């Protein structure tokens, strides 16, 4: 009976099972933390298995969506709100990424949470609920509710389990995100009031009847909320603080999934709902993305803290994602979809690795290290692979994403497209500079001779648990680099539909574009 119910309400199960399991785990006393960690991990693995088995075995309905669930929820002030969940090409791989990253994070940070580990595990599961809910919500108010619901568990993860400046970082994270989303709520209510519905399609229809000026204002209100989450330059300042202060697991989830919801919001809502405004502001978005790419890379280069370096590299990488989206071309957007997954995996893995190093050395300062490769060869091997994938070496995932984005941007018909692509290419170069320079200083060279240096504290290489966490990541890095089609095919149809009205002008002249599979499922 339960399996039958899950079959018909898979998404409800997926969204609320982690929440209920997390609440259940919260009831355990603190001294049971090891048991709670085990139960939490088992729960997360079970959810991953159910999700993967179900998602990969079903065929989408004609609209390209899976598992649609729809029932009226409540009517407030004359506007009905539908409890409408579905998975489609845009959210498919992000859902998989989420259910995949949570158990890996729990396992990867098994011993590093420290105090009150039980509550932290429970919060991770509650957070998973919020993320999955936001990814599968098809009704805008439901999306908004889940979007805000992600905030609280993340806030507590940073504020309770974070570093020394955790209060400041957590509050900044909260206020920045809320500032965007509250203004967005006003725009949402305005449009819903006009449309009499929270269904994106109906709202888009209504939006198209408004004046161009009104559309632009609404688009900006939507874009502000999403751009803060991405985060797009100059709204990124909360990110380095939040990442540096968050516990390892929090950083992994933040980089892996939470940031993606910003770019996902652009693709799912802001651009399809306000196509003409999106075309109007594409140059602005692309300009800010390019600045984010170069600026993020330059700032990352000068960091003395490894984790902060990875955080700024996030700004740079998410700039690529936003550039792909701003190009409004199929190739660029598909690249952005892929780059979202890449960034989730590579940067998530980098945060995990930095966390593993920190657990041993209790420092993250680059100058405290040197010669780590001698002490921890296996760790170094994994770190190198992930580093190269983050730089975007061919055959790794990073290359495919960045290549598609740059190609899509260059061939888009905007006047600024070629300049933007060329400047952004500089970002690829810079990413090699800051990553490899950091690797050189931390891993190679002579062992740091200082008594209290980080390297001196490294007594053990990775254990079996840590290797077990990293192996699936490495497999994915190569799989996505060698056969990206697995991941691209899913989203192509949906992305094309999202861009139906908001596409870039035709290319100025014919340019060889990368041939993508024409098979749209």
């Amino acid at each position, binding site marked *: 009976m339960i399996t039958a119910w899950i079959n018909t309400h898979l998404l409800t199960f997926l969204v609320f099972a982690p929440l209920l399991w997390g609440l259940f785990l919260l009831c355990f006393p603190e001294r049971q933390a090891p048991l709670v960690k085990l139960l939490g991990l088992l729960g997360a693995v079970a959810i991953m298995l159910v999700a993967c088995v179900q998602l990969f075995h079903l065929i989408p309905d004609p609209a390209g969506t899976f598992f649609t669930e729809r029932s009226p929820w*409540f009517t407030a*002030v004359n506007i009905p709100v539908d409890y409408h969940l579905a998975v489609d090409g845009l959210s498919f791989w992000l859902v998989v990424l989420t259910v995949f990253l949570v158990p890996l994070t729990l396992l990867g940070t098994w011993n590093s949470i420290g105090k009150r580990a039980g509550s932290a595990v429970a919060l991770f599961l509650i957070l998973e609920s919020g993320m999955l809910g936001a990814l599968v919500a098809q009704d805008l108010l439901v999306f908004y*509710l889940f979007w*805000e619901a992600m905030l609280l568990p993340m806030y*507590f993860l940073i*504020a309770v389990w974070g570093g020394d400046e955790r209060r400041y970082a957590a509050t900044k994270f909260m206020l920045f995100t809320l*500032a965007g989303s*509250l203004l967005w709520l*006003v725009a949402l209510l305005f449009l819903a009031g006009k449309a009499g519905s929270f269904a994106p399609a109906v709202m888009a229809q209504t939006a198209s009847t408004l004046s161009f000026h009104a559309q632009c204002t609404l688009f900006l209100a939507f874009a502000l909320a999403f751009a803060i989450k991405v985060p797009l330059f100059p709204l990124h300042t909360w990110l380095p603080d939040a990442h540096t202060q968050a516990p390892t697991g929090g950083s992994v989830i933040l980089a892996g999934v939470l940031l993606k919801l910003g770019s996902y919001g652009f693709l799912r809502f802001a651009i399809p709902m306000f196509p003409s405004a999106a075309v109007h502001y594409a140059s602005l978005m692309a300009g800010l993305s390019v600045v984010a790419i170069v600026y993020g890379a330059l700032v990352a280069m000068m960091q003395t803290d490894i984790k902060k370096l990875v955080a700024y590299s996030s700004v740079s990488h998410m700039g690529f994602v936003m550039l792909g989206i701003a190009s409004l071309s199929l190739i660029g957007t598909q690249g952005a979809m892929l780059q979202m997954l890449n960034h989730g995996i590579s940067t998530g893995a980098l945060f995990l690795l930095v966390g593993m190093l920190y657990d041993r050395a209790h420092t993250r300062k680059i100058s405290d290290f040197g010669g780590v490769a001698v002490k921890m060869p296996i760790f170094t091997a994994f770190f190198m692979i992930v580093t190269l994938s983050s730089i975007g070496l061919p055959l790794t995932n990073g290359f495919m994403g960045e290549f598609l984005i740059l190609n899509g941007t260059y061939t888009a018909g905007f006047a600024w497209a070629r300049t933007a692509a060329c400047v952004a290419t500089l970002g690829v170069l810079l990413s090699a500079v800051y990553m490899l320079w950091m690797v050189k200083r931390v891993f190679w060279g002579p062992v740091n001779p200082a008594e209290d240096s980080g390297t001196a504290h490294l007594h053990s290489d990775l254990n079996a648990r840590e290797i077990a966490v990293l192996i699936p990541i490495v497999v994915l890095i190569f799989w996505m680099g060698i056969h990206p089609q697995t991941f691209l095919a899913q989203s192509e149809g949906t992305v094309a539909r999202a861009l139906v009205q908001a596409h870039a002008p035709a290319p100025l002249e014919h340019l060889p574009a990368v041939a993508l599979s024409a098979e749209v499922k």
Partner: protein
Amino acid sequence: MTLTNGEISAILPLLIPALGACLLPIAALDSDQATVKWIRGFMFFTALLALTGGFIYLTRLWSTGAQPSYGALHMDRLAQFGGIFVLVAAALAVLQLWDHLHQEGWVKGETLSLLLFSVVGMVLFTATSNLLLLFLGLELLSLPLYALTSTLRMRDRAMEGGMKYFITGAVASSCFLMGSVLLYGATGTLDAAAAGRLLMTPGTALDPIALVGGALLLSGFLFKVSAVPFHQWTPDVYEAAPHPISGFMSVATKGVAIIALFRVMAVGLPVLGLRMQSAMAVLAVLTLAVGNLAALAQPNIKRMLAYSSISHAGYLLLGFVAGTHPAYAGMLFYLLAYLAMNMGAFGALTAFGLVGDDVSFEQLKGQGWKRPGLAIAATFCMFSLAGLPPFAGFYGKYMIFKELILQGHVGLAVFGVTASLVSVYYYLRLPVTLFIEKPSEAAERAASERPAVVAPFAGATVLVCGLLVIILGLIPGTIMATFARPAVQETIQLPR
């Protein structure tokens, strides 16, 4: 004189708590040490019984759909809603008082009696549009509250707060009375609805005397709502009063003043109400600004909650600016949410055993991990006050902002959400203090020397409130359809 059944059922909601209020002082006379424990138990039981009796009676009346009236007293849906609202708030306050007064070591019978008399005044206040009866209700609800503020009369601050409340309250009452007199002079009737009809007679210009009278009436109401510029008493009085009484004042007084404001300004005197809409908008903006900004800098939790209560008056006033049926229904929903979250917030102070003059965040540091269930419930109440989804407070704001936007006041809505963004910062301080900050060693030592906090009832009320803000947030549609919307639709006929 004989009363018909309908007339009796109209006044019973007033009589039941009044009867309890009269019985209580008799019980309080006995101060024999051997029986004092039993007497205290009996007093609290009687008070709860009276409140529960009134609650059951009103819910029955609600479910039958009867709307009896007796003269100018109309026990209609809106009054029933207001009565239920007040009785629930009072019952929560009584439960919290038991713990709080025992913690303070000052359990006296008259406290409960005064509280019940105030409840009678509040029920009366929501149930009439006759200006004289309204004044009676206003005084009956205020006078006991002045005394209740000074419950802990061995403290200077309590006496000072009570006196301050009394003097400012007297000014507000005189404004109200003067306004009634002017309206009576202009129209020759004391009934707000009849006066409104007279003022709307086509072809007659609006009498300036009536306008001044309306403005004075409004000031009287706004004082009770604690809107800027009639707010200065709020922090001092809340700080002086026992925690449950502060909670009760912030919730019930504000609630009934809003409901009576519906009845008088929106329904009875729509001409004046429309004239004053822009003034209302200005006051709402000022209230939001002052409440939220001042709350940022308060080291004392009760003062922070007092300024937060001012800011919530601002959101409610925004509903008046929108001035439509759904907006009024949204305000009633907001009041329900506010009942749960603010009684929970003030109840948490008792449940964590904060006593004495200075109720600062300092004393709560690190307490969350010692009593997680309670702390989580209090945190939920705070998030709800901040208006974060999926808690009840979000939907209250949602419905008001939505109507504002539909009515074209987008700028006001943007100001409102900005204000609630600011509020997140100070509401987060309680969870931060409870869960994140570490108590100083001196505080740890002092805490280990003090006896453990005993507050089973207050703790239970906080848990119930924490649960309520979630439930209200999960089924806002049902609550709107069953309570808020009927109360508005069957009572308020809007002029436009």
